[in-house]
């Protein structure tokens, strides 16, 4: 025995988690999805402050502007924007010309023109830095100059002229946050409840699980709508509540696992060797429970995101001007005839995120399921 131990090469054991990580790394779809999710999370968290537009800013001149890689205003819309602004001054355009990034316009009127009129040009979303270049001696003719404000709307703008890119990113922030928040609430309640039932066993377990059965039998949508009715449209409260509804599956899974782990031979062996309750719990039960919990959590987050979108779609979830992918998609669905980008961009973000979450969930299941080895 002793010389075998002496000659054997030192084998570095791999822990359960090291092993799982190695297998997850070998799963290309799951790894790619993981990177994609990280990317979505980063651009959702930091994106809204980097995009030049606020998600609430309304550009009155750019309502339902189609997405474009080049800057607005386009060459052919400058004249319209200019005549619009000049019309508000209640003066007439004598002539105008564009020089590079600036426009020069000569206006005339029957009455002397007030200098403060230039603010009408500044108020337009297309121009700023308006100056009076020269004035005719009688004050009836004024030459003004203004620089053209270059603005990019990569995803276009919505019905009220808000930038869709910043709104989509902001919506991602809300949708992901809600998914995580409600997911964590559900997991915490489910794990505590299920573990308690599984450990208590006997009568207590039976009563606790009957309660879960009763809650299961009520139509889920009825539950959610009752929650909306109770909590009003305060979405943080509501999603805490939604999380509190979704814990049922988690509780069942954890209870089943806890029961089966307790009956495993290695637990019996540990008991026979005199390991205390606490030791068995920490060393054997919890590490073995973590796998299913992690897997279920990754599958729960997309469920919550879909649920949030569903509620927002019905007008019960997140309220304006705050936004989420569900809100954006519901607006997009109503405008597909005239502005399909309102549907396509948010739908793309939502669907790809759901895909990625599913792939990560499947990958984790393959990586953590010991039966598959």
């Amino acid at each position: 025995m002793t010389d075998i131990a002496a000659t054997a090469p030192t084998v570095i054991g791999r822990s359960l988690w090291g092993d799982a990580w190695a297998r997850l790394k070998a799963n290309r779809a799951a790894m790619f999805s993981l990177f994609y999710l990280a990317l979505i999370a980063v651009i959702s968290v930091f994106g809204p402050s980097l995009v030049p537009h606020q998600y609430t800013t309304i550009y009155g001149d750019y309502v339902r502007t189609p997405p474009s890689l080049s800057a607005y205003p386009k060459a052919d819309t400058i004249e319209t924007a200019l005549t619009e602004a000049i019309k508000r001054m209640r003066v007439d355009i004598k002539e105008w010309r564009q020089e590079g990034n600036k426009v020069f316009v000569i206006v005339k009127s029957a009455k002397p023109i007030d200098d403060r009129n230039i603010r009408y040009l500044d108020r337009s979303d297309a121009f700023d830095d308006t100056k009076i270049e020269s004035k005719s001696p009688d004050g009836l003719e004024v030459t003004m100059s203004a620089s053209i404000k270059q603005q990019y709307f990569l995803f276009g703008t919505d019905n009220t002229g808000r930038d869709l890119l910043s709104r989509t990113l902001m919506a991602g922030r809300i949708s992901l946050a809600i998914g995580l928040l409600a997911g964590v609430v559900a997991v915490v309640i489910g794990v505590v409840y299920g573990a308690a039932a599984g450990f208590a066993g006997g009568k207590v377990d039976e009563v606790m699980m009957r309660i879960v059965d009763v809650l299961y039998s009520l139509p889920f949508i009825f539950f959610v709508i009752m929650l909306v009715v109770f909590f009003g449209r305060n979405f943080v409260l509501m999603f805490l509540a939604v999380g509190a509804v979704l814990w049922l599956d988690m509780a069942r899974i954890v209870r089943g696992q806890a029961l089966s782990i307790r009956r495993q031979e290695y637990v019996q062996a540990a008991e026979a060797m005199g390991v205390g309750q606490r030791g068995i719990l920490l060393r054997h039960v919890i590490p073995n429970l973590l796998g299913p919990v992690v897997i279920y959590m990754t599958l729960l987050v997309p469920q919550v995101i879909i649920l949030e979108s569903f509620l927002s779609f019905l007008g019960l979830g997140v309220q304006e001007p705050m936004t989420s992918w569900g809100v954006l998609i519901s607006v997009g669905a109503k405008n597909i005839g005239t502005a399909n980008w309102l549907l396509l961009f948010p739908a793309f973000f939502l669907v790809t995120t759901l895909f990625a979450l599913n792939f990560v969930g499947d990958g984790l299941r393959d990586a953590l399921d010991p039966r598959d080895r």
Partner: protein
Amino acid sequence: MLRYVLRRLLTAIPTLFVIVTMAFFLMRVAPGGPFNQERGLSPEIRANLEAQFGLNDPLWLQFVHYLGNLLRGNFGPSYNMPDFTVTELFAKGLPISVQLGASALVLALLLGSMLGTIAALNQNKLGDYTVIALATAGSTIPTFVIAPVIQLLFGLTWRLLPIGGWGDGAFINKVGPVLTLALPQIAIVARLMRGSMIESLRSHHIRTARALGLSDWSVVVKHALRGAILPIVSFTGPAAAALLTGSVIVETIFSIPGVGRYFVDAALNRDYTLVMGTVVVIAIFTIVFNLIVDVMYAVVDPRVRYD
């Protein structure tokens, strides 16, 4: 078997009673009432309305009244659509939702089992991967994305289908909603079928059938299918109950006058009788379809017996 069915129907009564009771009291605990709209009625009118519908009685008395009416098949008047009783509303909307749901279910079962079988027969080959990819897409993309995309492609770009509306049940008006309802279900059925078919193809009687020289077609359709179909049967129960009672999303997007919207609208407007009616209808559908599925189980698999 008959005794089993009767016993199941009898046990459904307490279940229904619990569901009705819970829904009734949950609904009443919620703040607000059917006549507190934003543009409020004058207090006198409201008092009269509430008196007319018996809303001033003690809650237990209202509950007893409601149960009594329910037993006589009377769901009561709708509070927010005062020209209709709840029964009339369902008589109008339910056939529409059932038509759409049933078509979607049949489509899902046929197409899903076919795709699942194809995948199982080509395990780990191109056909398999294609079906898995389609199934993943179908079960991941939510209905409220599928529906407007179908409208956008088939309705606006190619102009093959109307964008929405019921059109008195014209076939062309049903295509979009049925497709939207069926796609996620097709995905689920295909996945279930693939898994159970792979298992069924590995069993001994299939090996025997092959050894006896039966054709591939007869092995799969006559012998493997019968064993593989059980998970699909148990899927059909809850799926049928959910599909036939209408979908809020699909009916809203395609402007279909079915019963899918009743639940949401009624709960938000505190239309108590309509909410209760919807709960009862959904519960009955669920109970009946689960019973049918359990009976079907015994028909498909003779090893299952109910005594």
